């Protein structure tokens, strides 16, 4: 099995279990507020880390390259409340353009 399929199946099964645990297993019990707080902060923490790795990491070093233009274009699109496909397109196009010139 390829790495892609192994990831697809494992993430799919794991996510299904996470979504089901409340409605199927736990019933109507109260969630401790601190647990709720920490688990709901996982997404911002991980997404910020992904911005850093996808935007600045090259192997094991941090570099400033064409991707900075992609991030800047993406940030501008986000600030202008552009739809998400336009944010992605702006990021990809700006990165590709700077690579083409540079």
């Amino acid at each position, binding site marked *: 099995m390829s*790495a*892609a*399929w192994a990831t*697809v199946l*494992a993430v*799919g099964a*794991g*996510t*299904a279990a*996470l979504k*089901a*645990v*409340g*409605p*199927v297993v*736990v*019933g109507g019990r109260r*969630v401790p*507020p*601190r647990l*709720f707080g*920490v*688990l709901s*902060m*996982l*997404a*911002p*923490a*991980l*997404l*910020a*880390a*992904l*911005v*850093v790795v*996808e*935007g*600045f*990491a090259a*192997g094991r*070093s941090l570099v400033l390259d*064409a*991707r900075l233009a*992609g*991030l800047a*274009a993406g*940030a501008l699109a986000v600030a202008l409340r552009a*739809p*998400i*496909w336009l*944010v*992605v*397109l*702006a*990021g*990809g196009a*700006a*990165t590709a*353009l700077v*690579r083409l010139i540079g």
Partner: protein
Amino acid sequence: MPAAFALGASFGVLARASHVGALAAVVMSGTTFAGSAQVAAISVLGGGGTVAAAVVAALLLNARYAVIGMTVAESFRGSVLRRFGESQLVIDESWALSGGGTPRFDRRVMLGVGVALWVGWVGGTAGGALLGGLIDPSSFGLDGAFAALFLALLAAQLRSRRAVVAAAGGALIAAVLTPVAPPGVPILAATVAALAGWSRT
């Protein structure tokens, strides 16, 4: 639903460019049905991370669904199979639009919104995956597109002071660890920053 379609299409294009097949991308959207986790998984794989690192990163992003599911668990009735099936439609948007977290949560609204988003998300993925097969990723600025997408998903999460603290901490941890740790590990280590959610607001 148009927003779900557009994000699904973006995922489909990025998945194909990251050497994930069209069928695998569509199956992932149909079963996982959680945008940021899916994009994170293919990004970690594409960046040289292991399958384990990709799976753990995606499941940590989805860990909030365990809690979201618990906040609405009382409203679900019927057989285990039915509750399991309906629980799969609880995502951030369907939960918020149906009054999740308030006493007025409406399971029927959640199911309706969830089904509409699922159709848009899976359809968008299929469209994007077909389109993505026609694009040469090396000329596309794929990594810059990923970075911009994560930035957009992050911006949508920054609704509280705690979220900003968690994001800043996660970014710092990833930056410090990138030079010293194997690919995938800096992202997983950034989960420590979620402890910003421990304090009572």
